[in-house]
C-alpha cells in the first residue's frame, strides 16, 4: 500500500516512466491503482526519433508489470515522510 499511497500523492506531477522494453515516456501523472498501473497525460516518448510508434498518443495507460523505473520529481519526494511510512509498513501496519 505504501507506494500506491505515495503515487496517489504524486498525481498532477511530471514523471518519466521507464519500461522493461527500454521505452521511456514522460508525462503528467493522472492516476494509479493498487497494481501500480499508471495513467499519464500529455505524454511524449523520450527518444522520439528512435521510437516514433506512439507519435499520435497523448494519453496512455501503462501496465504496472512492465514498469522498470519511475523518475520522480525532487519536489515530490519528502524523505522524512517516506522513512516514517516505510517503518510503519515494515511493522506490518
Amino acid at each position, binding site marked *: 500500500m*505504501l*507506494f500506491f499511497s*505515495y503515487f496517489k500523492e504524486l498525481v498532477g506531477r511530471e514523471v518519466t516512466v521507464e519500461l*522493461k522494453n527500454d521505452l521511456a515516456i514522460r508525462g503528467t501523472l493522472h492516476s494509479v491503482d493498487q497494481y*501500480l498501473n499508471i495513467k499519464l497525460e500529455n505524454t511524449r516518448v523520450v527518444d522520439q526519433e528512435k521510437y516514433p510508434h506512439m507519435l499520435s498518443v497523448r494519453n496512455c495507460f501503462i501496465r*504496472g*508489470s512492465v*514498469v*522498470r*523505473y*519511475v*523518475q*520522480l*520529481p*525532487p519536489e*515530490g*519526494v519528502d*524523505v522524512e515522510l*517516506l*522513512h516514517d*511510512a*516505510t*517503518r510503519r*509498513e*515494515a511493522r506490518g501496519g
Partner: protein
Amino acid sequence: MASEEESAVKEPLDLIRLSLDERIYVKLRSDRELRGKLHAYDQHLNMILGDVEEVVTSIEIDDETYEEIVRTTKRNVPFLFVRGDGVILVSPPLRTA
C-alpha cells in the same frame, strides 16, 4: 527509541530496514546496477532511491575482430522508484570495522 524487537534481524527484510537512509547497492535484471540512498521499500522490494547512479553493462561484438567488447553506461538520477520484480540482490552499506 529503538526497542529490542525493532533492531533484531530475524528475516532478510529486517536487514533492509536497517539500511534505510543509507547508501545501498542493488543488482537488477538486464545487467543493471544501482547505487543510491534508500528512502523507502516494501515487501515486494519496490524501492525509492535518492542520488542514484545506474550502471548498465552491455556486450558488443567488434565488426572486424568479432571480439566481445564490454561497455558500461553510467547515468545519475536524483530520485528513482524501482519496481521490485527486477531486483536480484540488495547489499547494505559496508560497515567499517
